[in-house]
């Protein structure tokens, strides 16, 4: 608090007076809280507004073959979460306008591993001096890059630790064998639910599922003891047998954000015992678990304030600075954000296995079985086309190693736009042409050094990628047309020989999921081809048995539904192909008599049969907007024949998957 006015006392007086003068200024009516909230409500309740501008007609599924018999399909969600400005000032290296790589990728100066802490300090110092008029660093919405992680998502993963005999759901992850943390988990007997509640702190509630007759057996809050502990909160968790790993957002005495990974022995579910607690500087970005190793990624801003205060520019892990020979920075590019990657073995959580700090402010994160890819769209690169830099760390058994970093033209939709197979990274990106307007799409195949070995450009001009999914040699992606009357569509290369097929259907899929061997499920929006208006949430089942002739076998449209979190977060989908079960929460906006809008949420469960198509098995209405909760991000889990709904305000509720009958409910708020 301190140094209020750091100037002459003689200034202080007039400044106080001048402030009073300024205080006479009243904002116009349009900016009043009432008017503003009214406007926000109007806009957030009428999702159809978003559609204006999309002429939309057919969404297109493109199928391509890559090399010998590979075949792809993709998808993407639009620009919203793709566009995160970078925090770096590209200046002296990287590419400048006019020297863009023709094919997409260019070396970006390369990363250097530090040989001392002083070297890092000098590096940051230098860039601060170079930085005169650049205010890069905030997104348009003011979000810092680490917040821009809505794109953590994956596909169904079979948790390799699924030891329970009872069949139960798993978090819907991207890569089989690579688990992703979430706010709910189940092991077939217990539910593990993070509930943050009104105090914003939260706890993991362990609930004995008991066929729906639930009983809370314990709750575990943040374990930290800092002075700001009331601001600490529980984020997400993993469960592996009798071990629970909880990620927590914490603050030290200086009010700086750090992340704690706490490991518990939950042999006694009623009394979790802390077996290890590891901390790393920075705000939580993402995490993964492979085998018994958990990898936690945080982001921390770095500023060389003073050489003595090394914590301002060197991230700490477990109260020690990251070893300098584990710190990597780009020699010719200024970066003020550190990505801190730390790994631990949950079977011996006394210390981190490995920590690496990279001066890179990545956003989209994709983790394969042996590599971590972080991508960041470059903002002020001076290029006339969108560009992304991608950074790769190899990993195995808790050890990580900086592997490569490269740039390519285009921007990624989300983590599903990336996929690694047999040592190659395949990705699809939408390339915006800032100079002439419009966009095209590119597909790249990169080798283990991230050098491009194959590519296709100019796909679906004028459209952008909304979703993508890869399986072995095959990839799929969905693009969607956006009306932009200022620019003509570039059809110069419409006949790429590598495209296998193109299916034109109405609407578009924002999430793709392989369903049985020769089927692909799409969840997205239906769009009126004439007016471009959204007409509900659409489920499509595609027959991909013949990739040259993909068909939409069946579709169903939830006409009243305006949104579902699945479009932006794969973890919000409950999909179990073997059980033929598809569940998610939809929101509907109902106009009231007084002209306002009320949001209603429903959790729906579908099954799919070839021939008869999608069948709605359950439709559970959740309370409206009472108590300030939105059920948008509700999670469904199942154990045997019971469906559990969590993240529905302070309740976890259970329903029969057969009859839909409500079997029980626990309130997470009351004191036990």
């Amino acid at each position: 608090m301190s140094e209020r006015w750091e100037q002459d006392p003689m200034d202080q007086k007039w400044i106080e007076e001048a402030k009073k003068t300024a205080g006479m200024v009243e904002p116009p009516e349009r900016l009043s809280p009432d008017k503003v909230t009214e406007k926000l409500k109007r806009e957030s309740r009428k999702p159809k507004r978003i559609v204006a501008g999309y002429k939309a007609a057919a969404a297109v599924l493109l199928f391509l073959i890559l090399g010998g018999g590979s075949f792809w399909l993709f998808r993407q969600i639009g620009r919203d979460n793709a566009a995160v400005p970078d925090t770096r000032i590209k200046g002296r290296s990287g590419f400048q306008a006019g020297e863009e790589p023709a094919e997409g990728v260019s070396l970006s100066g390369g990363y250097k591993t530090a040989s001392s802490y002083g070297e890092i300090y000098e590096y940051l110092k230098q860039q601060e001096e170079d930085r005169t008029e650049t205010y890069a660093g905030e997104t348009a919405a003011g979000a810092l890059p680490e917040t821009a992680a809505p794109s953590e998502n994956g596909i169904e993963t079979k948790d390799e630790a699924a030891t329970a005999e009872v069949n139960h759901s798993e978090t819907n992850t991207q890569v089989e064998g690579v688990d992703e943390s979430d706010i709910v988990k189940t092991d077939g007997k217990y539910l593990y639910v993070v509930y943050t509640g009104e105090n914003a702190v939260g706890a993991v509630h362990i609930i004995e599922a008991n066929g729906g007759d639930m009983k809370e057996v314990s709750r575990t809050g943040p374990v930290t003891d800092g002075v700001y502990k009331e601001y600490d909160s529980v984020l997400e968790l993993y469960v592996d047998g009798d071990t629970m790993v909880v990620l927590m957002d914490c603050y030290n005495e200086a009010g700086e954000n750090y992340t704690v990974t706490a490991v518990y022995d939950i042999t006694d579910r009623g009394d979790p015992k802390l077996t290890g607690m590891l901390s790393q500087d920075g705000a939580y970005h993402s995490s993964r678990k492979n085998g018994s190793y958990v990898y936690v990624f945080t982001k921390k801003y770095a500023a060389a304030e003073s050489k003595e205060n090394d914590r301002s520019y060197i991230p700490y892990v477990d109260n020690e600075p990251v070893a300098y020979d584990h710190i990597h920075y780009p020699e010719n590019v200024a970066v003020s954000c550190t990505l801190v990657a730390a790994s631990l073995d949950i079977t011996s959580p006394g210390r981190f296995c490995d920590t690496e700090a990279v001066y890179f402010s990545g956003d989209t994160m994709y983790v394969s079985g042996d590599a971590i890819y972080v991508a960041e769209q470059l903002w002020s690169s001076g290029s006339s086309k969108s560009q992304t830099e991608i950074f790769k760390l190899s990993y195995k058994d808790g050890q990580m190693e900086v592997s490569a970093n490269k740039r390519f033209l285009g921007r990624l939709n989300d983590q599903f736009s990336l996929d690694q197979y047999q040592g190659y990274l395949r990705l699809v990106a939408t390339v915006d042409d800032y100079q002439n307007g419009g966009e095209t799409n590119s597909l790249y195949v990169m080798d283990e050094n991230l050098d491009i070995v194959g590519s296709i450009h100019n796909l679906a001009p004028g459209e952008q990628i909304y979703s993508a999914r890869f399986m072995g040699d095959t990839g799929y992606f969905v693009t969607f047309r956006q009306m932009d009357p200022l620019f003509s569509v570039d059809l110069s290369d419409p006949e790429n020989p590598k495209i296998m097929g193109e299916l034109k259907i109405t609407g578009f899929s924002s999430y793709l999921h392989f369903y049985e061997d020769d089927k692909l499920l799409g969840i997205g929006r239906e769009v009126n081809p004439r007016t471009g208006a959204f007409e509900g949430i659409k489920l499509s089942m595609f027959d991909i048995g013949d990739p040259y002739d993909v068909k939409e076998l069946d579709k169903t449209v939830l006409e009243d539904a305006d949104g579902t979190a699945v479009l932006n977060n794969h973890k919000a989908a409950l999909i179990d192909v073997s059980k033929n079960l598809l569940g998610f929460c939809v929101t509907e906006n109902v106009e009231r008599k007084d002209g306002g809008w009320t949001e209603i949420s429903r959790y729906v469960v579908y099954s799919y049969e070839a021939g008869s198509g999608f069948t709605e098995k359950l439709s559970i209405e959740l309370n409206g907007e009472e108590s300030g909760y939105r059920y948008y991000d509700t999670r469904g889990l199942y154990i045997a024949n019971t469906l559990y709904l969590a993240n529905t305000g302070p309740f976890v509720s259970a329903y029969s998957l057969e009859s839909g009958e409500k079997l029980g409910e626990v309130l997470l708020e009351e004191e036990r």
Partner: protein
Amino acid sequence: MPDAFEMSEGRWSMERSEELRLIKLAKKGNVDAFGQLYEEVYKDLYRFALFILKEPHDAEDVVGDTVTAAFEGIRGLRHDEAFRSWIFRILTNKSKRMLKHYAERPVFGEFEAAAETEGMQEEHGARSSGAGQEDILDLWDAFQQLSEEDRVIVGLSFFGGYNSQEIAEMLRKKPGTVRSRQSRALARMRTHLSGSYGI
């Protein structure tokens, strides 16, 4: 910054715990919770924009854009960040964009014309005392004497209640640079305002 939550001396009357609760709700999409947070700060947001920009309607637009961006991006607000500083940062960026826009396309607007007239009256000794509007125009005019960057610095300190360290962080400059620019700017304003405020 241990004091990050209270940096804006009295202008933020809400308890931090209440603020955190509202932020949580706003992150879940609750517009009313967002509105309560906004209510605490919107007057300062508008005043900041008004005094550093050239046109009242630009100030209105910039604040309007800021609110929309803030609501859409509220999930990006970190736990350790105060709503007030966060939204001020968004506003600062948007205002800077507007200032850049002016630089490319000179504007001579209504407000400026009014201030100009006011300035002329002052020269002729026709200045009336105490009238709110005139004082406001005078102060606005004093702000306009500064370079765009200095306007932002002084604006953040006046309306945001930030100290030089915090401003330096927001603008990614050295605190020392901010301090020296600020004292220079204040001296300039003082000269321009001489005759008022007991200067």
